[in-house]
């Protein structure tokens, strides 16, 4: 089980950030997430595997300074 934006979701071995986003709605503007407190950006979505019990927040559209 993982927690995504404070909602529980099923977890499976090897799931990546990209797969997770594909399972969710309205994520086309997500360019960064916080995975267990660490920032992960788009270029690493395919390769970053989510561990079990992870806590994930989807960051809002990056808006610049």
């Amino acid at each position, binding site marked *: 089980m993982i927690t995504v934006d404070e909602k529980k979701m099923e977890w499976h071995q090897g799931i990546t950030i990209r797969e997770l986003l594909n399972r969710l709605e309205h994520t086309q503007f997500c360019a960064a997430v916080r995975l267990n407190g660490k920032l992960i950006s788009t270029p690493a979505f395919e390769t970053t595997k989510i561990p079990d019990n992870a806590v994930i927040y*989807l960051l809002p559209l990056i808006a*610049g300074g």
Partner: protein
Amino acid sequence: MAEFTLKEIKSLEYVRPEIEKGYTDHSLHVDLSSKDIKINPIEPKVKEKFIGGKGYDLWFMWNSVSGKTKWNDPENAICIASGPLGGTPGYPGGGKSIVTTISPLTGIPIDSNVGGYFGPYTKFSGFDILEITGKSDAQIVVLIDGIDSKIKLYEAEGLTDDSYTLSTQLTDYFDKEKPVNISVVSTGSAAKHTELGCLNFTWFDAKRKRVRYKQAGRGGIGTVFAHKNVKAVVARWGSVSMKSNNPADFDAMKNVTKLHAGEINELDPKQNRMALVGTTHLVPIMNDHDCLPVNNFKYGMHPEAHNIGEAVYEHIFDKGFDGCWRGCAVACAHGVKDFVPFTGPYKGQKVFVDGPEYETVAGCGSNLGVFDPFFILEMNFYCDTYGLDTISIGTGIAFVMECFEMGLITKEHTGGMDLSFGNRLNALELLHQMVRGEGFGMIVGKGIRKMKAIFAKDFGADAAIMQDIGMESKGLEFSEYMTKESLAQQGGYGMALKGPQHDEAWLIFLDMVHNFMPTFENKAEALHWFPMFRTWFGLCGLCKLPWNDIVPEDNRQNPEPAKVVKHVGWYADFFSSVTGRKVSPDDLIPMSEAVYNFQRLFNLKMGYGTREFDTLPYRAVGPVTVDEYLSRVERYDKDLTENYKVDITGMEITEKVAVLRKHREARYEQLKDAVYKRRGWTPNGIPTLETVKRLGIDFPDVIELLKANGVC
């Protein structure tokens, strides 16, 4: 601390205009040449059209300067205004000041949106805007004392040039018992030797018992301030409450304040955590997307970038509330205590550093090829203390370093200094030279545009290559984002009224990462809506960060999440509740449009403001050099073959660089056409007669200006 004297030379007692629905409807004018102090009513039609803040600044400046006025002419004005909503405690970002003047770097109006308490305190003291003109022989301190209803001018002697110490001394001097009543505007000692001077605006941090700073950084406003011989402008005001603006509908204002602040308190910890890390979260994100400027914007990422990002600064920042306006829930104005510089006059002493923000980290760190968080703190500290803009300093020194590495300048020109990328000590030495008024630092302090001319004329450097790598447009140094892969952001910088600062439009991710605006028309629409909406914050005395750096949880379900429409609705409610002027979200853009177009016309009045000035150095558009091309060879080859349908078989890299350049530059010109059309401008980038009439800014002198430029 050194002894100083303030000799009162002028005092004016006044009846404090009451605040009504966010406005005092009065202006304060100080002429430093004649020492005249004037308080004038502001006409309703000015309020109706220019709203406040930057709108008021531009209108007052327009009436003070002629098209021939230079930055160092006495008639050049420094205007500082908050806005009708400015000074609302608890509303996130609800207390900004907007500063304008004719910039020494650009020759056109520069505007800067800054925190600290000065703008609200000046308004509560009775004035929607302060305008300073003239030039004094002696150093002057201006006091706006809203508690005692007095405006005073003092001749100052013995006051330090060091901005931190100066602000502390004057805060103590004018209200030792209640330092929170004081806000000081000052610059530092390098402002008079350079054209990159900033203004420091203070607020008193009651918990830390110290004066804190925010900067009106861009465009050399501090240089104008120093040239006028103003040592400081001080505002003194007492208690502030949600009723201070005397809002039209208090309950509605309280309600929308609660909604916005409540949302930020709940969501910031889950989103960008700005209350903990400020804007340093952007460093790793920009780096991951190849958008963090490295080595003078040559590259967009570096393996050591994470050393200067949020993960490090979170542990360096002093913990505690860091709102640069009272009760701002974002509270992102962090600082570092007990930092010990390793160079300069503060070497070995413990100091407090206000910052760094993303721009300073990228400008004075990665862009100089330095990934040391403590070096960045030292650059930040000395820039503030000396009154220098960290963005122009970072981008300017990055240019110098690339020129040095290319052999365009040598140790012979730099006074023996090795200015290769990564040379921390010599970068700092340039700042110290600027304050001492000596050495190569004096040339660097003139900004990139003038450096290019000096390097070419006096050092024989190749002007063409410097044109390509010198990251300035309209004379202003770029802020710290890479734009090579975002045509929309190239427009966001190249067509920004004051020069390449991202506060008009920040479209990199929408464009480059999300491909949300594939056509020229889409981009033009974005380059209309975003600059107009962002302008609105400057009219009202607000900070833009709470608009789109923390967003509602359901925002991503909106088809246009970048606009954060729920917040736009709140801003309309906020405006209506304070001013009593009922507006809907759709009304906000036309409000800004009038001021935005007026600023464009102001540029025209000053001899600029046409298509030829909306240009970019090629470094902002594509790879200048062969090694730059090779560093992203797949990307550029793909661009040539897929987007421009070029057969690259057998092409040398130099040829590829040239062909890509031809296409990308043509594409930028096409974008200009689309944007000008969308904004209601001629193909030469001038607002049409129809546009100025529609916006109600068809004043007789505007019509004359259009006629003189062949528009009607």
